[in-house]
């Protein structure tokens, strides 16, 4: 992963010390007949950040991306991207600065990779002399550039879609489940791109339900459900909010014996590990308490088989938030 330097002109901090927001959605609502796409979505994407939208299918992630580019209008609330209304008369200016990779690569199968890139170059006002070969080379598909896209593998199609999305050097990259159905190598290429864009100070918004991808990549995580934000913020902050104290996993031969921990000094939180009867996740006011707790349990005959500090993952956070 590359070192990030997220300070471009439009990424300079504003009054509160945070970078200016590239995307600002406030109370956005969008329905599709009786179905609700976005219920009351409020979202702020700081310039130069990688913001990951996570949520189950139907949470409204794709709709949010479509609202950001102005491809969909809103029924209520306000949307501002680069300070402009993307669905209004200035929408063209917004879309010129966006690069989008949709959930399906959205490529013209009967045309060659080069044709697809040239078409994008023309739409984005770059003319037919756009650096399509360089863009293809960046994603390792330059040898297939003159082949029909219909013959590409899924991974090659995604790489081409990525090359097309960055061809015009967008300021805001929007990725909708970009690694869905990809082999590990292609997934890695996508994540490299995201990291590379962030290193260049660009702003990235990525939808995913593969939280492992977001780990270590996201500056901001937005958890969505039923078209609204359930929780949002930097991953560390979210973790601290949900698990404010250090966590230790205790496992014992007799799971019920771990209940003794609830009443012990320094224990500020106790929960059974989901799916395991013999294990508990214990939050402590201080990790230095662990030797004392182990000694106390041993003294009353509890036979421990595992004691280890635990750093919760984004996936655990997501599951806890969803099922609380």
């Amino acid at each position, binding site marked *: 992963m590359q070192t990030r330097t997220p300070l471009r002109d439009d990424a300079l901090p504003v009054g509160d010390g945070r970078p200016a927001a590239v995307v600002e959605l406030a109370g956005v609502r969008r329905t599709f007949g009786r179905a609700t796409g976005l219920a009351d979505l409020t979202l702020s994407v700081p310039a130069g950040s990688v913001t990951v939208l996570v949520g189950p299918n139907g949470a409204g992630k794709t709709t949010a991306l479509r609202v950001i580019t102005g491809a969909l209008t809103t029924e209520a609330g306000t949307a501002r991207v680069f300070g402009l209304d993307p669905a209004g008369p200035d929408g063209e200016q917004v879309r010129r600065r966006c690069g989008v990779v949709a959930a399906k690569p*959205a490529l013209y199968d009967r045309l060659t990779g080069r044709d697809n890139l040239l078409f994008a170059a023309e739409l984005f006002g770059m003319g037919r002399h756009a650096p399509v070969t360089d863009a293809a080379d960046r994603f390792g598909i330059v040898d297939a550039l003159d082949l029909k896209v219909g013959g590409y593998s899924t991974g090659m199609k995604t790489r081409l879609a990525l090359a097309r999305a960055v061809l015009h050097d967008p300021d805001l990259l929007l990725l909708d489940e970009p690694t869905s159905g990809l082999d590990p190598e292609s997934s890695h290429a996508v994540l490299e791109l995201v990291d590379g864009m962030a290193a260049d100070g660009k702003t990235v918004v990525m939808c995913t339900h593969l939280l492992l991808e977001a780990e270590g990549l996201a500056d901001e995580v937005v958890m969505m459900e039923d078209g609204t934000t359930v929780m949002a913020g930097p991953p560390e902050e979210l973790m601290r909010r949900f698990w404010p104290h250090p966590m230790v996993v205790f496992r014992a031969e007799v799971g019920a014996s771990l209940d003794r921990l609830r009443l012990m000094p320094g224990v500020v939180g106790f929960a059974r590990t989901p799916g395991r009867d013999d294990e508990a996740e214990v939050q402590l006011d201080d990790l230095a308490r662990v030797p004392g707790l182990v000694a106390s349990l041993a003294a009353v005959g509890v036979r421990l088989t595992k004691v280890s500090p635990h750093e919760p993952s984004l996936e655990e956070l997501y599951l806890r938030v969803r099922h609380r």
Partner: protein
Amino acid sequence: MNWARMWAVARNDLRQLARSPDFWAPMLVLAALFFVVIPVILLLTITNLGDVPTISKVSAALELLPQKAQAAVRGATAADRTTYALAVYLFAPLAVIVPMTISTAIAANTVVGEKEKGTGEFLAHSPASEREIYLGKLVASLLPGYLTTLVGFGIYSLAVNLIVGPNVGGWFFPTRAWWVLMLWVVPPFLAITLSVVLRLSARVKSAAAAQQASGLVTLPLIVLSYGQSTGALLGASRSGLMVGAIAWAVAILGLMRGAKAVTRARLLGIDT
């Protein structure tokens, strides 16, 4: 309105079309059949048969034509007069059916095709305006049909002049009424049809549904334009100019209304 982007959309569609021989080959066969095969066989047959009783009966039927049209028919014999009348008056539908069939088939698929293949998502997120996309699609649908018709018309003109010309005092085709028909009457009728078909293509859910619906909608339009085209050929060239002028007015109105049918939401497959 960015014309370069509009042309980019049109070129992209035309490029896809050019790489789809399974689509354009049958269209070429249709054009060849209507513009070359059927007229050549018919005209050669009558020319070679001469004044047999059947031809004389057909020639007599020419009296049903308006006086002005009858007076314009050239030729000394019944066969000559029949071939002349067939070449000038009977094949008017060629000029209408061929472009409408080709262009309708392309237009029916053009917007819904983007939805079905998912490429509409790319267009929806692109800087191209809805109007640029609509006009690009219109041009991409109109050009193949109209150009095929113009080329077919050229070949047809050559064929009738070579077959019928020597018997009626030299090259005679296209007549002034045919020029008016080809350059003034056919284009607006084509535009009217396409404005309807593109609206359908933007609204339906599948290419199959678009083909079905456009077939139903364009049939009366073909009949109407066939009738008007024949009328324009049989009447004075002024009537052709008038028919064309009315058709242009309707076409412009239809295209303006049709432009609203192509929206970003519809390109995404969302119709609410």
